[in-house]
């Protein structure tokens, strides 16, 4: 049996009338990378803010590293490292001062603190920037500085709230490598993201969260397999008839309406099945507007269970996020 480092039972959180988190239960195991995947406003940050003691625990029971979040806040705070969603840095301090400040408010003794600062600078590849003011660093460097700051106190769990929000693809890959490296060295990682690739590439296990509820949890493979080995999306005006035809095959696991047309999930090799389906549809007089075959992604998983696309805001969302970060500086 795996050892749970975070145990959450029936966590509920509301802001006035708005219920942001509606009673979720989950575990994070020691040593793994665990992700919350969901669109903006799903309740990811609220959950992280409660787990990291920034928001009060309203309802539910939470154990972090064996400490009760309600009664042993201080112990919880000592056990965790946090990288916040928005940038939490003082641009007028130098890189060294930023880390020194962190070590001191966490009560690290001087010798240990100084050693760790050296290690962290190496890990974040910021040795040459040590006396540079934070505001003169690039976005990627600042993010690496924040992550290494979160690691400085050797936390048992590192919380990463949207760690690559608003970063360019190249920087994002470097941050991912960095997160993997940190995890290999033994730190458990709890990550929230609304980027499918991020959850897919990094996590050992993923929980998909939407409207304050966990929809489904498992490894990336398990989640994808849960909706079939292959997916066919069929667009047609005559969807009732199409549904009937598709359902008659034994290769078909499930047929349902989706925003991309009919979603036909298969339990067989789709490349061999697709010609058969097209012929059958033609024979029954179903007018095919478009048809596509694909391996399921986490996007499809999200669409399957919520009926909506994960990339709801799309690029516009991203621009807004970047603009927001800029304004904060």
């Amino acid at each position, binding site marked *: 049996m795996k050892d749970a480092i975070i145990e959450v039972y029936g966590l509920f959180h509301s802001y006035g009338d708005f219920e942001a988190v509606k009673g979720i239960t989950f575990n994070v195991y020691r040593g793994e990378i665990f992700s919350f995947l969901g669109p903006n406003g799903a309740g990811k940050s609220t959950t992280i803010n409660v787990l990291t003691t920034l928001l009060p625990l309203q309802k539910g029971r939470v154990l972090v590293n064996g400490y009760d979040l309600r009664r042993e806040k201080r112990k919880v705070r000592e056990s965790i490292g946090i990288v916040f969603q928005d940038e939490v840095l003082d641009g*007028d301090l130098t890189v060294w001062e930023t880390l020194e400040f962190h070590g*001191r408010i966490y009560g690290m003794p001087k010798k240990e603190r100084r050693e760790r600062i050296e290690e962290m600078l190496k890990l974040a590849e910021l040795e040459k920037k040590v006396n540079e003011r934070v505001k003169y660093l690039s976005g990627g460097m600042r993010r690496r500085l924040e992550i290494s700051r979160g690691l400085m106190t050797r936390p048992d769990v590192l919380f990463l709230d949207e760690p690559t929000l608003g970063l360019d693809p190249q920087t994002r890959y470097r941050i991912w490598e960095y997160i993997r490296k940190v995890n290999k060295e033994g730190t458990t990682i709890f990550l929230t993201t609304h980027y499918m690739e991020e959850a897919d590439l990094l996590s050992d296990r993923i929980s998909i969260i939407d409207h304050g509820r966990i929809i489904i949890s498992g490894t990336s493979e398990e989640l994808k397999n849960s909706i079939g080995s292959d997916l066919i999306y069929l667009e047609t005006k005559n969807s009732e008839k199409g549904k009937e035809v598709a359902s008659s095959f034994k290769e078909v696991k499930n047929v349902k309406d989706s925003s991309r047309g009919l979603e036909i999930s298969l339990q067989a090799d789709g490349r061999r099945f697709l010609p058969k389906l097209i012929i059958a549809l033609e024979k029954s007089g179903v007018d095919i507007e478009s048809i596509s075959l694909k391996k399921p992604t986490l996007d499809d998983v999200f669409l399957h269970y919520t009926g909506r696309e994960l990339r709801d805001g799309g690029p516009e969302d991203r621009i807004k996020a970047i603009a927001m970060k800029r304004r*904060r*500086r």
Partner: protein
Amino acid sequence: MNTAFLTVYWRDMIRFRRFRPMLFSTLIQPILWMAFFGIGMSSNFDKFSQFAMLPPGIRSVDYLTFMAAGVIAMTTLFTSLFGGISLLFDKRWGIMKEMLASPMPRTHILWGISLSGVTKALIQATLIMIFGLLIGVEFFSGFTLARIIIAVLGIALFVTIFSLGFLFLSAGITMRLESMEGVQGIMTLLTMPLFFSSNALYPIESFPSWLRVISVVNPLTYLVKGIRYFAIGNDFFAMGTHYSYSLQEILTSLIVLIIFSAITYVFAWVTFRKAVVT
């Protein structure tokens, strides 16, 4: 002992030194008050006070000396009242979240910021005294060295307690508000009546009764009293008014300031304990 508040202090002082325009204006502003308002007013007021009846055997003090104590008090008030604003910057663009999520007790944030505010106020008070003496303020006149030391320590004590009181108030208000405009609005609204209902620039003895009531509950009045007692003496004549302070009166002033600071501390403490920043 947990000394995390010294870390918060250390960081705030780094910013104070590094932020050159702020450092410059903080230091130069009180000197400008002395140089322009002080000299301008005293060259007029001293003309009138020649005609006042001077009781025999009492030291007469010119306006510049009289108002120098007021300028120290005013500067302390402004610096302290606006001292909490750095918390708003930390909340919106800075590291408040890092501090709130750390195991450091939250009161240390309050103490760290307040100590740095007190440091700034003390530096300013020292500068005003030095500059004042250079342009002819008659502070400590006829004092022995021992008495000058006691006087400076006494002024520092009054400035510290008063400054803490307004820093706590300012920190508490700032933590409760979200916008810069809101904080600045409230602070500006507070400074005007506090400043002009006090004895900083003129005697309050001839105020109409409603204004006197305000001046009696105004902490600034007690700070000015303390500074004048230590810097000028317990018996002098200025602006047509005879001032004489008993030791008891000065102790009472100190106690009033301590009570004021204790109340604002409780206000700030409650605010910090409940503070949520997301």
